[in-house]
């Protein structure tokens, strides 16, 4: 057991730190122009698609360097490395693994250069969590597919230029995991309509997508016809280490502490109430657990030991922490905690209240805690399927 970093790892951390010191201005000074140059600079550094093979324009970054990069970026509250989260997390790796030479040439560079934002068309109205039960239909017609149907909960759709879309090309199959095909579709395609969905916090990250006789040329198919599920699974399996999230949560924990110090309850400082102190300390134990779980699993990966679904452990912690910390902050601050941005008494500009209503994906849709518990019970503990 050894938490020391090698010299080259430490040097890399230093490199990242000094880069951030030079190139990352305080939050308020970060305007459009800054973002543009930021993206160019991190691209130059090779930190976009850091883990990707060099042949595709990545840096072959090792697992530990990846963790260091994420940790430092999170500590500095830096903007994301590239504009297309989905493109970097799922689409790019999918194309590198299953794509044709043309597809690789055509799509990979634009993702790395933040020229194209991708979204993923997986969920459908009648089976949010049950991804494989796809009804959205594609029929081959000469040199293209004709797509009809609907998707929903498509994150980022309102801002995306391209979508990776799961359709059913065969309804005669026995298993719902067969007969699924993966297509790459421009959002401005004819017959594609985006209807943004407003969430309870008033934001519009999500959208419904409707397809009416949308034509997709066959060369835009990713992988073989009917084998789209394999493509998706390997994409979904493309788990990100949670180190970045953990760092952000430790930051949030500090905000929560100062909130407790600056809040009075019944005329006494909130941080003088043992229950308040223990609640915050309990959050700390969970975040720390996420950190050291993550490091244990990272070590396993490095040593090439089998990882089943341990990442679900941290997903469950994160879900409860995301909701728990915001809700606790709102509760702690009483009536003032209810005010949103613009309220005269709003706490920290209403950010706590807002994010108490802005649930992350881990809590909803495909990632619901109940599903994560099934994964652990079935895949790790070997319990029978529902």
């Amino acid at each position, binding site marked *: 057991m050894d938490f020391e970093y090698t010299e080259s790892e430490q040097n890399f951390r230093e490199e990242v730190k000094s880069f951030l010191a030079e190139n990352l201005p305080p939050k308020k000074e970060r305007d459009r122009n800054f973002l543009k140059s930021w993206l160019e600079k991190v691209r130059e550094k090779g930190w976009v698609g850091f883990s990707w093979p060099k042949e595709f324009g990545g840096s072959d970054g090792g697992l530990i360097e990846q963790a260091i990069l994420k940790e430092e970026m999170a500590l500095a509250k830096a903007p994301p490395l590239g504009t297309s989260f989905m493109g970097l997390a799922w689409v790019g790796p999918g194309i590198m693994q299953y794509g044709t030479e043309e597809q690789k040439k055509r799509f990979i560079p634009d993702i790395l250069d933040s020229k194209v934002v991708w979204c993923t068309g997986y*969920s459908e109205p*009648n*089976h*949010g*969590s*049950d991804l494989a*039960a796809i009804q959205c239909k594609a029929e081959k017609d000469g040199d293209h597919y004709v797509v009809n149907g609907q998707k*929903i*909960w498509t994150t980022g759709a309102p801002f995306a230029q391209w979508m990776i879309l799961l359709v059913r090309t065969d309804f005669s199959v026995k298993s719902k995991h067969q007969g699924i095909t993966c297509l790459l579709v421009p959002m401005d395609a004819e017959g594609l309509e985006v209807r943004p*969905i*407003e*969430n*309870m916090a*008033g934001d519009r990250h*999500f959208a419904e997508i409707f397809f009416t006789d949308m034509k997709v040329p066959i060369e835009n198919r990713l992988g073989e016809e009917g084998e789209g599920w394999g493509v998706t699974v390997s994409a979904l399996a493309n788990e990100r280490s949670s180190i970045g999230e953990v760092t952000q949560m430790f930051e949030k924990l500090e905000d929560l502490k100062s909130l407790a110090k600056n*809040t*009075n*309850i*019944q*005329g006494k400082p909130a941080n003088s109430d043992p*229950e308040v102190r223990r609640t915050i300390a309990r959050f700390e134990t969970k975040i720390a657990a996420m950190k050291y779980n993550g490091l244990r699993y990272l070590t396993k990966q490095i040593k090439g030991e089998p990882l089943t679904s341990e990442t679900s452990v941290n997903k469950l912690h994160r879900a409860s922490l995301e*909701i728990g910390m915001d*809700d606790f902050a*709102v*509760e702690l*601050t*009483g*009536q*003032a*905690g*209810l*005010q*949103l*941005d*613009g*309220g*005269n*008494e*709003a706490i920290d500009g*209403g950010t706590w*209240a807002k994010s*108490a*209503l802005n*649930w992350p994906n881990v*809590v*909803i*849709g495909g990632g*619901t*805690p*109940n599903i994560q*518990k099934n994964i652990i019970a079935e895949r790790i503990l070997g319990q029978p399927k*529902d």
Partner: protein
Amino acid sequence: MDFGFSEEQNMLRDQVNRFMKERCPMNQVRQILKSDNKLDSALWSEISNLGWLALTIPERYGGLGLGWVDLTVVLEETAAGLCPLPVASHSLAAKAVLLCGNEEQKAKWLPPISEGSSVSTLGLFDDPNWISAEGISCSASETDTGFNLSGCKPFVSDATLCDWLFLAFNFKDQLVLAKIEREQCEIQSEPTMDETKPMGRVTLDSVSVDKSDTMTLSKEHLTTLTNYGALAVTAEMVGAAQSLLDLTSEYAKDRIQFGKPIGQYQGVKHRLAEMFVDIESFRSLCYYAAWALDDAPSEVDRAVSLAKGYASDAFAEIGIDGVGLHGAIGFTAEYDAQLYLKRSKWARPMYGDSNYHLDRLATLGGL
């Protein structure tokens, strides 16, 4: 021994229930929230004609002379549909006048209140987190004719909807409750989570009021009004929580995932059962507290703290899980579940959160 509602009370419940379905369904509620003037005067006069605003006011002041058990029925059923009319605030203002006013003031103010012609609210505390006379920083200074009032009450429920505001002020370690008309003060609408419960910031810049527009607010009365306030909020929590459970329970029966209705999975059905257990429980405690306010003064403090102490935390969890069990649809703006989540957040601190009431219970219990 009869821990149930009377025939009349059951009829009242049916009436309110029907009214909410026919005249104030959720699309109507959403309409009202969109409108600038968030008080729907038409609906307001309808319910005053139905006598809901006169329920707890003695007959000699134009009221119906009923009790808070009856009002509990109305608050529960209106809150079931998140009715944005300020019934609770209005009734609490009436209670304040009944408690603190002299004969003249009662005779003058209560009739228009029971008719609903003067929409009213009550503003006791200034601090977001302090249920106590010490938490009141708004102050009064004596003048020849009465008082000069200054200060800011940042969290007055329904202030933006009201004609009359009954506000508490500090005066030489005592408290004065003054009747302020909307024109006399600045009322700012605050953006908050639960739009069905508008929150107003009321500012008074040396407003002089006549003695006849002020009442003495003793510490005992402050406690009593806090108890009535907590009961009113809890009664609304019972109705709102039950609606969210019904909504979630129906959804669980219809929503198919992996080939089964999700209500067939114990992960869902057991949580629904737990919600039922909690709602049944703070419902019983709420009814007990309402009865105590009407008939057993010596049991009031404990009864109210049992009810609000249980409800505040339980409803907050029900709000979160009610939305969560719906999956993604639950937290979309156009779906109603999230409105109940927001209500659960609003209701939690009102007139004391769980910790406040549990602390009071511990003390009452001799700990």
